[in-house]
């Protein structure tokens, strides 16, 4: 494997990691996969696009729509992520809470979130069409488009935006780990994920924490969506779905519920995809899921997950 492949893999892996973080958060607290996460991720990208004052295309209810103001890109990203977080809370209220209150099977929650996700992306298409959109190149003004290293093995090139994504993902992972392990709220989250009933008996407001989890997960998803759209543009409202499926592979690989696991899983998947030979590049995704399948057979708890021990 060449250095170029490794760098390509890490760049892509950073993207998967940041996407999987939001997934892992909800899973670790509630024990359910939020299949609407891909839709929230997509929304984050679209919100940022709108907030920087860009104009939509020729299809949809809001054809040619444009906000009367334009925010600076960094502010638009954060605000867009906040909006995505709020949508996450809305999804919790609509798809998760009613079923949780009734003690329904987690499988139903999964299906419910999948339904909400599908509704959201179709709503996006209905409102603004399915054409491709890109952020203006000026957002990276001043930075060179790529960085080149002359190594003994040959020239190695990385796009600046990929470096940015990797750095931001690692930063977020560090912040999240600190938050979960060293802050009071973080510890409360861990308590709820361990056992919600006992946690609430100890005075922790589990409902509020669950809402906060969804907000945080949506916020992370929104940031991830914008970062990826910076790199590859917004191809259509459904691009979050592919990430959603791959994110699943990532958290299984890394260990469901483990935040460092999401990172390790993401980077692993990115590197595996990058070393696929050129003739098979069209089958990259099949390889990702083959890896998931192998992991489920060999080590079901994932690379960094804890084996589930049931106390009798």
């Amino acid at each position, binding site marked *: 494997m060449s250095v170029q492949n490794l760098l390509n893999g890490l760049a892509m892996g950073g993207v998967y990691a940041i996407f999987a973080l939001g997934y892992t958060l909800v899973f670790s607290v509630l024990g359910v996969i939020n299949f609407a996460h891909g839709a929230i991720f997509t929304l984050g990208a679209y919100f940022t696009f709108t907030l920087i004052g860009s104009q939509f295309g020729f299809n949809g209810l809001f054809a040619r729509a444009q906000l009367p103001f334009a925010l600076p890109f960094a502010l638009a990203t954060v605000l867009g992520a906040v909006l995505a977080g709020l949508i996450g809370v809305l999804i919790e209220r609509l798809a998760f809470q009613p079923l949780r209150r009734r003690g329904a099977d987690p499988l139903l929650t999964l299906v419910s979130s999948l339904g909400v996700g599908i509704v959201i992306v179709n709503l996006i298409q209905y409102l603004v069409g399915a054409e*491709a959109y890109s952020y203006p190149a000026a957002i990276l003004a001043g930075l060179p488009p790529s960085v080149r290293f002359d190594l003994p093995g040959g020239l190695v090139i990385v796009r600046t935006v990929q470096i940015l994504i990797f750095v931001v993902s690692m930063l977020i992972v560090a912040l999240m780990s600190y938050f979960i392990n060293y802050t009071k709220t973080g510890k409360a989250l861990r308590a709820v994920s361990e056992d919600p009933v006992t946690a609430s008996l100890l005075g922790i407001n589990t409902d509020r924490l669950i809402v906060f989890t969804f907000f945080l997960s949506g916020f992370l998803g929104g940031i991830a969506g914008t970062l990826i759209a910076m790199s590859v543009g917004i191809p259509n409202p459904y691009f979050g779905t592919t990430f959603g499926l791959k994110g699943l592979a990532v958290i299984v690989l890394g260990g469901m519920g483990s935040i460092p696991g999401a990172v390790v899983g993401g980077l692993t998947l990115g590197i595996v995809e990058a070393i696929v030979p050129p003739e098979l*590049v069209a089958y990259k995704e099949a390889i990702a899921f083959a890896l998931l399948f192998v992991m489920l057979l060999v080590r079901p708890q994932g690379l960094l997950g804890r084996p589930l021990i049931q106390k009798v």
Partner: protein
Amino acid sequence: MRPRKLLLKSLVSASLVSAIALTGSMSLMAQDEEPIRIGIALAQTSNVALLGQEQVIGAEIAEDFFNELGGVNGRPIELVFQDTAGDEQGAINAFQTLINNDNVVGIVGPTLSQQAFASDPLAEQAGVPVLAPSNTARGIPEIGDYIARVSAPVAVVAPNAVRAALEQNPDIQNVAVFFAQNDAFSVSETGTFQETVTAMGLNLVTVQQFQTTDTDFTTQATNAIALEPDLVIISGLAADGGNLVRQLRELGYEGAIIGGNGLNTANIFPVCQAFCDGIMIAQAYSPLVDSEINNAFREAYTALQEKNPPQFSAQAFAGVQVFVEALIALDNEVGLETLELADLRTQLNAQILAGEYDTPLGVISFTSEGEINQGTFYVAQIDMAEDGTGQFVLIGTYEAEPMAEGTPEATPEMEATAEATAAS
């Protein structure tokens, strides 16, 4: 019978007869004014709408244009639009609705060759003539007797781009080719590009594959750049093609880029932005051609859109034009009102193939297979301005080589696909 009953009976009969007579004559009058319906099955939504939208505009201009000229000997045409969206299923649904519910005399569409291999066999089975406005893959006219196209095949158009690239830079030696392996048109076009590269004595250093749904091309791009190509040729659609160009340029590729027909739209400008600059694209239409019909079409287009018409619009316009002129010829020969719909469709098909048409694409006609005979082709280069707007600048004009006897045969895979779809 008693006199009163007889009177009543006569009155009823008389009213019935008058009613029938009135209805009969009313329906004759309605027939004279009833518009002739032509089906338009294009991608109005989804990512493929980046290409389809230009076609819709061209078709709408054609509808107004030819109705103002009197339609078909006084009878107006009515274009019935059905959205195919971006996939095969959408095209099949659109065709079925147009053929069975809307009772159109013929169909202009669909946008993608990939869609056409799925939907055209339905029209063939139903005996409905189809004019493809933008299907350029190998094997399209061979789908059936009712399938023809106004879009010149990749085999004829694409090589001109390589010629133009060499004219700009005769030192080009190494060529890297990219193509979308899940799209029939891209697979066909890349075959032509690769053959051309080899035939011109250039060095094909790598062939990289991707999917039209891909967004990240880092692996393919870095693989190619490592081999130091002077020329990159891309066969894909608008969004993926635009993204690939952008990523190649960001990764430092400075050589020439040729885009295939899928990038032949101003709708890639928002995708690759300033990086679109310099892309060369072979075209089957130039807005600058000075002919009466093209001048009129260009005027109508610029009045609406404030810019020169693109190829996809011109081809859609030509598709509608061919239908109208063939209908006029058929009406003059046998009278359309004497024909039942099924018969009308069949005779219209024969008339289309027999005619010659002075369109914005030039003077065109069809081979017996339904392949277009077109005389002149062009190559344009994208010029992006500082403010982010762009335009296609004409850099070369090429006369077509004389058509070889017969047209390229469909590959066994394409025949199998066409049969399988027809059987399903």
